[in-house]
Structure formats: C-alpha cells, structure tokens
C-alpha cells in the first residue's frame, strides 16, 4: 500500500462521531491518530482501522483539561504524522442545563473542556500546521451555539465561543494555508444523545461522518450538518424574542 499523503488527528477519538469519522478517513487511505483519554479503548479502535483499511493508525493520550500537556502532545503528533496533518476536533462535554445549574463544578468543567481545552490544543497545534505549509481543521460546533435555548444555553454558549475562536484562528493562519471549517451539527445518534428524548432530524453517525468528510474536502467557514439545519436555524434565529421566550425549546 502506498504511503498515506495525509494523517487525520481525531481529538476525541473515542467519541461516536470521532470513531465514525476515523473510519471515513481510513477508508480514503489516510493515516489516523486517535487521541483521547481512554487509551486502552483507543488502541482497540486503532487496531480496527489498521485491520479494516490497511492504513497506519495509532492511539494517543490526550486530555483537553490538561493544558500543560498540549504542546508536547502537538510535537508528538507532528512526529507521527505521515504527509499533511489535518485535525478533527470531536471532543466535548454536554451535561444538561439542569446539571449545570445544580453543580457549578459541572458547568465549569464543560466550559474548560469545550472552550479552554479546545482553544489550547488548537493553539498548540497551529505551529505544526504552519510549518508543514497548511492543513485542514474541522471542528464540531453545534446549532445550539446559534441561539440560546432554555434547555442547553450554557452548552450553546461554549459552542458559540468556539465558533468565534475558530473565526479568528482561520483569519490568523489562512495565509499559511490553514483552512478551517466549523460544522454546526444537529443532533446525532451518539452515546451522548442516547439517554435523551427523541430529537428532531437525528443523523446516524455514519451518515454524519460521510457528510463531514465531504464538507472537509470542499468547504471553509461554517456549514450545517445535516443540511436541513441551515433553513431550520435561519427560521429559529429570525423568531422575535417575545415569541421565542414563550416557546419551550
């Protein structure tokens, strides 16, 4: 098999979407680094990628909350990458609003994971991307970040913060060939959403990963996935506050 021309680093490689995206990338012949906290599990996923697709795949320890480790982690990724290193940021924490209200520690942990941790690891990886002359950064944002709803507005706030961070990150590194895509994801049938009541327009992980892979090749900026969320969110954003505040969303 020919040496891969690109390596996808999947941050949050143990997540449902991270796993599905890694399958897509490997099926296309890319090498994969699956990064996360549960290394024993990630080793199993990496073995699967190697066996099914015959591509190089490794597990890496990565903890979004361990900010001090991020630079060393970025260097290790650079050393392991074959061809161009690209990133999928697929980790995140999504406790319910009720849990956030009841336990300030839970709320803080979410903000630190989804915002501080994400910003920190992307910042640590930026020099790697610049040195190699570019790269693709795909992040999992959320439609929850487009308008705050009673049910998950703190979670939405972390994704809105991530969106603004990514805008500036893209502008800052664009001239070095770095392309950034923030996927505004609708609900996906993952381990996170499993215990929740049925959500509208739920996407399967495989379909979502296929869509994300396609968007990653074509698009920069922001894109809704599944695409139906573009018109739906346009409508929801247009609802006046006095009406919106009476809806139970």
């Amino acid at each position, binding site marked *: 098999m020919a040496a891969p021309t690109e390596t996808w680093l999947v941050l949050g490689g*143990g997540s*449902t979407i991270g*796993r599905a995206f890694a399958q897509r990338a490997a099926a296309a012949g890319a*090498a994969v680094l699956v990064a996360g*906290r*549960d*290394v*024993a*599990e990630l*080793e*199993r*996923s990496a*073995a*699967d990628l*190697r*066996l*099914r*697709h015959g591509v*190089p*795949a*490794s*597990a*890496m*320890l990565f*903890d979004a909350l*361990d900010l001090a480790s991020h630079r060393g982690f970025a260097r*290790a990724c650079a050393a*392991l990458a*074959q061809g161009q290193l690209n990133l999928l940021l697929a980790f995140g924490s999504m406790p319910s609003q009720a849990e956030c209200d009841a336990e300030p520690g839970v709320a803080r942990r979410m903000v630190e994971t989804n915002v501080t941790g994400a910003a920190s690891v992307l910042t640590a990886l930026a020099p790697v991307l610049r040195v190699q002359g570019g790269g693709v950064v795909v992040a999992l944002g959320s439609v929850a970040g487009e308008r705050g709803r009673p049910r998950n507005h703190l979670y939405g706030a972390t994704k809105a913060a991530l969106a603004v961070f990514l805008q500036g990150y893209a502008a800052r590194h664009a001239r070095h060939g770095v392309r950034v895509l923030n996927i505004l994801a609708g609900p996906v049938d993952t*381990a996170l959403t*499993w*215990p*929740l009541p049925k959500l509208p327009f739920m996407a399967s992980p495989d379909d979502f990963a296929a869509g994300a892979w396609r968007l990653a090749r074509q698009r920069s900026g922001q894109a809704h996935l599944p695409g139906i969320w573009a018109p739906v969110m346009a409508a929801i954003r247009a609802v006046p506050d006095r009406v919106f505040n009476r809806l139970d969303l």
Partner: protein
Amino acid sequence: MNLVLPTHAVRVASNVAWRSVALRGWGRLGSAPCQAARPERLREVADALLAEGGRNLIAHGGGRSYGDAGLNGGGAAVLTARLNRMLAFDAETGVLVAEPGVTFADIIAAFLPRGWLPPTPPGTAFATLGGAVANDVHGKNQHAAGCLGHHLEWLDLTLADGTTRRLSPTGDAEAFQATIGGIGLTGIITAVALRLLRVPSNAMVVRRRRIAGLEEYLEAFRTARDASWSVGWIDALAGGATLGRGVLETAEHATESVAIPAAGTRRMPFDAPGFLLNPLSIRAFNAAYWRRVPAGGDEQVMHANRFLFPLDGIGAWNRLYGWRGFHQFQCVLPEAEAPRGLRLLLEAVGQAGAASFLAVLKWMGRPGVGMLSFAQPGFTLALDIPARPASRALLLRLERITRDHGGRIYLAKDSALSPQGMAEMYPRLADFQRVRARLDPQGRLSSDMSRRLGLG
C-alpha cells in the same frame, strides 16, 4: 507507526446510560418494550450487568433473530452493535479476533479482497458475530463445514457478576459449549476468535437446476454431497405431484475474482399491503422463480455475496409480509425420517393455505458443538408463515410433525415452540441449565424466549 505513547491513563468515569426502547424480532410479530444500554466501550458491558436495579437482561445484536430470542419485554437489553471493532488478525492461521457487534458484512468487506471468507456465513450478512455464536449459525456449506462453533478458537464471556472469562475447547469447555448456541443465556459475549476460510477469489461458480419433486430433491442433495456449497429453494405452495418442487443451487469457489457489485440496495419502503399477500400472487411469484431457471439448468459466475445473501439485496425485506409480521419455521429431520416428515410438513402448510414465499431446503452434516446447537445430520426446512389468527395452530401442527419424526426446531427462527417440545428436541438441555446455574446463579440473563420455553 504502531507505537504506544502514553505513560499513564486518565481515569474515565463510566456511567451506563439507559433509555426506553421497543425491540422487535426480524419477523416483526410485536414489540418488546425494555430499558436498553448501547455500550461503545468494552467496559460498559460489565457496567451494564452490574447496574443498579438488578433487572434481568439479554444481549441484542443485529436484530436478525426472527422471533423472541433477542427480546426481553419489561427487562433490559444490552445492544452490542456499537462494539464492532476488529482487534487482531493472524494471516498464517486466519484467526480473526473481533468484538461481538462486528457483522459478517464487515468481515467480508475487509477480508474477502484478501482471500478470506467467514467460515459459515448465515443467510444474512447483517447478523453480528455475538448473535452468530449465541445461535451457532450455519451456512450453505453446513454439510461440509459444520456450524460457526466448529470454527471458534475461543470467546470472551462477561458474566452476570461483571467478570470476564475466556472460554475455549480446553478452557472451561462446558461453559464454552453452553455459550455456543446458548441464545445469550450464559452471559454477554465480548470477543470472538474465529478461524476464517481461505478462498481463491471473491466469486463463486453457481449451478442451478430445476427439481420436480421432493424425492428427487433428497436424492439430488445426496448426489451433490461433494459440492462445497449447496442450497435448495422450494415452492412451498406446490402440492400434489409437484410437492417439493424447487431449484437446487450448488457452488464452488471460482479461480478468478469478479468486479464488486455496485453498492446500494433496493429497499422495501413500506409494509406490503395485505391484499398482495394472497396465495394466488405468491403462487405466481414462486412459479415464476421456478421457471426462471432453464429446464436444462444453468451456470453463472457471481460475487460471493450474491450467492450467500440473496435477500440482503432487498433492504427490510421483512416488510414484505405486511404490518402483522411473520413467523419463520425451521426444523431439521434425521435423514431416515426426512422423506415422510418433509412431505407432511409441506402438506400441512399447503392445507393451511399459509402463503409462503420460497422455502429453503438444505442437507446438514456435522452436529453443532453447543449444548443447544440446532444442527444435526439430516435435512433442514425453513419457511415463512405470515402472521394470521390461524398461524399458531399451524405452527403447533408443524411442531408435532417435527417431534414425531425425531426432529428439532431452530431457536434463532422460533416464535412458537412449546416447553415440552424444547425439552424433547434438545437432549442436553439439563446440562445446559446446570452450567447456566453455575455461571449465572441469580438468573439475571433471561429473555422473552427463555421464559416462553420455561428456561427461566
């Protein structure tokens, strides 16, 4: 690039999430509401078994058991489909180690291009390995290759107390034999080590010939005993002189590969309306199927998937029988009893006017290694029975005929067997229950099927 970097692991809390679901068997006879966990990490299986509440529990894989083997109404289910990673492969021995949610389709997609096939592919590629072990499935090569259990090196079983044991013919052989074909009642299978079959290509040379009646059929199977693969399709609505009429397919591996058929299958988009399912229309379909084969027979080279999994080409084909669903009946009769027993079974179906699309006839060789394995030497007949008020009575009659002829009913398909029939057909049932009591003393593992059959 296979290095291990981490110097320490971060402790990750594992809390199993449950949600209410309504599970159905492939026959869609009804739905069983239960609490379900869907682990994506190995450790969550033990966590689910240890979960508070002590609900009784069954593993549920691809949902391809026709009846209630994978259902647990009012209890809990552990959905294993997302534990679907391949963990290791030894190209010398052909042994693949994989998680229970890996399907035959997954194995074929990854390994057939490299010259390996699952050793005993069942009639659908969407069955999972865990379910395949728990039902000790067989394929169109049963007469030569036996059942899945014959090709297992070992398996990992997580018990009701959350501990995991590696079972093999030499490591707790008794528990190994209880788990193979044990319809999930000994624990949850978390890894399977399976010897794949070396094949020269991805293609098969398939020979088809028309068979005029039952006697000719049984003789034709005996004549074809050296064929690597063989299966017979029977027009279950043909009666009188044409009773047992059908098409016999035998196959050998081709030496050259063929192009992989285009992905994307047709799909049954809705439940077929009842009026389509009358004996006339199904009779016409079955007759057309028979006539499609030239009188002198034919020979085709095709991709292995097309021969092995013809129904997988139509997604959700189980909706063909409408919203009421259908029973599937499969039994095996010893060779000496087969001519008379099969005739009685086909006549009973014909008299009941129970419209069935093609039925399947197959010659079996080696008995399975599991205590509750279905396979035994003889002939096996499988047919669909659309659910109607009268179908229970028909199934009872088919069970009676099967018992009278020393036969056995296949639990993977079953939705109607009686506890007395179970005890009579499965002579090692007492052994099975003894091992089960040792592995699961509190009886946590239980299903709609186990309760129906009086197994607890």
